[in-house]
């Protein structure tokens, strides 16, 4: 297949650095453009050259073209679980998600986070902190259901073994060496 590399109109590709004799006028005053013939081999080239063929970047546009007519008032979804709401809009939206409501310690941190607006860094940092706490809670939840999470399987160790065996072995050797050194150092400290 011919690539646009081969029809590259840029013959002017020598390195300019160190050419003290060159002057600004050696640079083209216009960007170089390939001809239509040089681009003709590209399937579909220029099909949307005419802007009226393009769907349009979302800039405000009325009326919308592809959806049913808007309704005056959307029915309100019934709230069955705790939903945290942004301080940057009043009340709750007519439609909202109800999955994984806040609970436990992470839930308390999330509630605290929602005291601040999206404009406030504390809001996001608290949420990130809650996420980390939530991971520990998730392990507790698994264990309380009598399920020991297979962390290596969850991280895709099977795929790593199939497609990156050398990398996996290397990681295992490094981890083994670190662990071995730690055990060795601790024993030595105990002996003293």
């Amino acid at each position, binding site marked *: 297949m011919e690539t646009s590399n081969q029809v590259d109109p840029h013959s002017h590709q020598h390195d*300019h650095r160190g050419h003290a004799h060159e002057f600004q006028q050696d640079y083209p005053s216009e960007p170089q453009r390939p001809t239509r013939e040089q681009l003709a081999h590209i399937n579909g080239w220029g*099909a949307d050259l005419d802007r009226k063929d393009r769907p349009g970047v979302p800039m405000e546009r009325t009326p919308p073209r592809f959806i049913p007519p*808007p309704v005056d008032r959307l*029915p309100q979804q019934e709230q069955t679980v705790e939903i945290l709401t942004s301080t940057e809009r009043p009340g709750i939206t007519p439609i909202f998600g109800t999955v994984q409501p806040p609970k436990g310690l992470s839930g308390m941190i999330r509630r605290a986070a929602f005291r601040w607006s999206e404009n406030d860094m504390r809001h996001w940092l608290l949420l990130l902190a809650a996420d980390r706490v939530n991971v520990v809670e998730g392990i507790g939840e698994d264990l309380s259901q009598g399920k020991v999470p297979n962390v290596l399987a969850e991280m895709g160790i099977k795929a790593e073994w199939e497609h990156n065996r050398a990398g996996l072995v290397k990681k295992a050797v490094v981890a083994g060496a670190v662990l071995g050194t730690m055990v060795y150092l601790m024993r030595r400290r105990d002996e003293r």
Partner: protein
Amino acid sequence: MLAMNYRGPYRVRADHKPDPVIEHPGDAIVRVTRTCICGSDLHLYHGMVPDTRVGHTFGHEFIGVVDDVGSDVKNLKVGDKVLVPFNLFCGSCFYCKHELYGNCNNTNAQASAVGGIYGYSHTAGGYDGGQAEYVRVPMADVGPHIIPDDIHDDDAVLLTDVTPTGYQAAEMGDIKEGDTVVIFGAGPIGLIAAKSAWLMGAGRVIVVDEVEYRLEFAKRWAQCEVVNFREVNDMAEHIKKMTDWMGADVCIDCVGGDAAGSIAQTLTGRLMKAQAGSSTVLHWAINSVRKGGNVSIVGVYGPTFNMVPMGNVLNKGLTIRANQASVKRHLPRLIEHIRAGRLSPKDIITHRIPLEEVSDAYHIFSSKLDECIKTVLIPPRAKDVSAVQASKSQ
């Protein structure tokens, strides 16, 4: 039902969860037949998106069959085959009335900057996503799009996000005939953006990435020039050199906050989380574009602060456009392109993996193993459907 279940950074598994139910008269329940893992799911997978709760099911790219509808749904019926745009939108608010579907104000109670997105944390509304056997689809009269008979399921699923987002990325660059377009990121969105740049009359398309197999794919599939940033001294200088020292007319960021390539950015963004992800690509885009040029951003950044070279944006007189794609408005034109053979999104799918093996699927995609470009997950209840489709396409 079987569903992907997030347990923490780099940890996901397939679990049994309760089936979703109708919660609003405008809802539908869709039985998923194909769902993708998206590059932006990796931001969640890496634990970078705030308020990603343990137990969440990801997946904003899915197609399926309508299984149940709420009492207000008029345009969809049980048994319809639909593709569902990744944005949840109401069709009635100020933004929807102006076709800014990605910015709907009625579907996300937890944040005002972003609308609702399926399976994309509680910052994007707290909806479970489509990497499951069933999914709740609110505003079913407005969002879902019936899949035409002649459109392949694999193309349909890529019309839920990747294809419209890549296309919109190119469109926001306002490409004119002959323009030099530089696209950062040779993932699925970058590939579609490269193809779309040609459709819009670009004169040169250059794709930048660090992974050799992805660059090879881009060169072959999108017929573009490629640059491996690991092999160049300085990105902005290199692009200037390639363009007779003018700079590119248009630069497009198809990477977002997970970008590699700068130690300072990796340290402050990806490791310390002191900014909302690493803005390496944004730096490169702003510094590689010519003066008066356009920068288009579809790469996902977090909501907190980012270090952006604003001084250069001013000094160079740049136009910056960015948004979540308003999928719905692009569908008719993109379906035309697929029918005419100008665009074949399904070519970028390299992996088809059963939903049961979701842990491995995420690891393969995240670690770029096995030359992975795009992964489709097939839920167990969809296998009959995909078998029918396979026999039809032969």
